[in-house]
């Protein structure tokens, strides 16, 4: 009886109007323009006027001979960046929450790249990765390793950008993991301390209990990877040729060319693709969310 009233009252503790500020802002400034974009994707749209042409833009977009490169690169980019960030950030976070020396210093430098603008990072690394005078190759050359053309070799360019993306973004993943690790109640560690060493703790306490953080990181960086644009744009512009083009850079180039309807159609395709990939993933993660 008493339990019941509490339950009922608690529902009032979570009033629906708390949604309103977020939902209204989002609806006006994001949903409305996005929905009108759906309409524009069915038009030949020169900014000055729009002619309805049905699904022609979708046909053009999907029959582009270069699209397959862009699609493949998008997947490679998203999977590699989210995978590497997740795998590398966890040990880093464990280290930065342990009692290692210079912890504060490490935390700062790992997070620092997050602070700098993507454009600036892109410019800096494209210079560091110069084939002849770039610092990376000067160092590699002096210890007798080869001097690959990181951004100029069509086979390497995409992976070089992936590396920089991970470098720039790992700070966020690490912070999310650190918060997750610090939220693990001490009792779990205390119980385990009696039984095993570091590896056991890592394997049986940390990994399972930071699951929510892992899901968040995978989801965020996978989505981020699928729609990543500025870094690729600043470093290779999708080149050389088409070698590191991803969907967003293809769409942006069509936009630049003044093919607004066509690029909006590309946007819609990207959106559908992401939805098809992310929603099942999210549902799966949500069903396995843990409460401490």
């Amino acid at each position: 009886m008493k339990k019941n009233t509490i339950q009922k009252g608690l529902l009032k503790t979570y009033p629906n109007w708390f949604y309103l500020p977020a939902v209204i802002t989002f609806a006006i400034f994001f949903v409305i323009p996005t929905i009108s974009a759906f309409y524009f994707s069915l038009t030949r749209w020169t900014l000055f006027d729009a002619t309805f042409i049905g699904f022609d833009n979708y046909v053009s977009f999907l029959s582009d001979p270069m699209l397959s490169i862009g699609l493949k690169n998008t997947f490679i980019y998203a999977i590699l960046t989210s995978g590497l960030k997740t795998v590398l950030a966890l040990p880093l976070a464990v280290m930065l929450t342990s009692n290692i020396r210079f912890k504060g210093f490490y935390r700062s430098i790992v997070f620092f790249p997050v602070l700098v603008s993507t454009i600036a990072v892109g410019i800096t690394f494209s210079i560091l990765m110069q084939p002849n005078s770039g610092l990376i190759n000067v160092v590699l050359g002096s210890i007798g390793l080869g001097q690959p053309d990181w951004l100029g070799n069509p086979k390497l360019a995409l992976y070089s950008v992936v590396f920089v993306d991970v470098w720039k973004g790992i700070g966020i993943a690490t912070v999310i993991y650190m918060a997750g690790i610090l939220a693990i109640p001490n009792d779990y560690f205390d119980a385990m301390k009696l039984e095993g060493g570091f590896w056991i703790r890592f394997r049986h306490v940390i990994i399972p209990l930071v699951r929510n953080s892992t899901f968040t990181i995978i989801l965020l960086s996978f989505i981020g990877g699928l729609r990543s644009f500025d870094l690729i744009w600043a470093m290779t512009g999708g080149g050389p040729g088409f070698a590191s083009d991803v969907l967003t850079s293809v769409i942006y180039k069509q936009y630049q060319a003044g093919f607004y309807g066509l690029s909006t159609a590309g946007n819609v395709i990207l959106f559908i693709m992401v939805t098809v990939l992310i929603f099942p993933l999210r549902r799966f993660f949500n069903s396995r969310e843990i409460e401490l």
Partner: protein
Amino acid sequence: MKLKKRSSYYLANIAVFILLSVIFIIPFIYILLMAAKSSKEAALLQFSLPSQFLFLENLKAVIVFGDYRMFRALLNSTLLTVGSVALIVVFAALFAFVSQRKKDKLASVLMSLLMIGLMIPPAVVPTIFLLRSLKIYKTMFGMIMIDVALFMPFATMIFRTAMSTIPRDLDEASFIDGATPLTIFFSVILPLLKPAIVTVVVTTSVNIFNDFVGPLYFLPGAKNITAPLTLYSFISQFSTQWNLLFANVVVVSVIPLIIFIFFQRQLVSGMMGGAVKG
């Protein structure tokens, strides 16, 4: 045996120190070196000490450029960042609080809607038309609302994850004590969300401060220039002054750095103290 263990511990420590320093610090040293060179020397793109140390001269050139427009740019960017982040934190936390607690159909539908915002890039021209019809195109307010809409989904996601670590018993206890929803939210939930808030504030403010495509389209006009757009005056299609470009990078990175230094202790202590045990 013990000695061996200890020395390998030190070796590991040194290895970590060197590895992390090389990976994360060298690029920034490079930026500083470039910013201190003459334009001709910088064009060689080498990692070397400048033959003449022109750091202050280059900084001055960047700041004085165009009637001290750098000051205006920094002011605009700060205003944009502070305004957007303040709204994002309140809006997103309110949303995450209710949606994580209720977990009903409405909550999941709305959450899915917000997730769409994480995925698709904004539609530029329809957004401009919208802002114009609301008479807030080219205003700081309009740009702030756009940034709130674009960056809120990320904040909501972080807050929701953090909410799942705050036990419901706390809400129940406050409810029994007779607290209203607003009091529970502001005096129980928000303080416990502090580590997540710090995370959101740091990441979002840095993203908004450094965002370059948004202001380019939604906040045009010389008066409205923002910090990252100042980078653009030095990258033109046909000529590049690398030394000034990097000096500009240094100037526009100072404020994000201050944000970080300011919040760094809270980022750490907040996470330690704020994490709910048990």
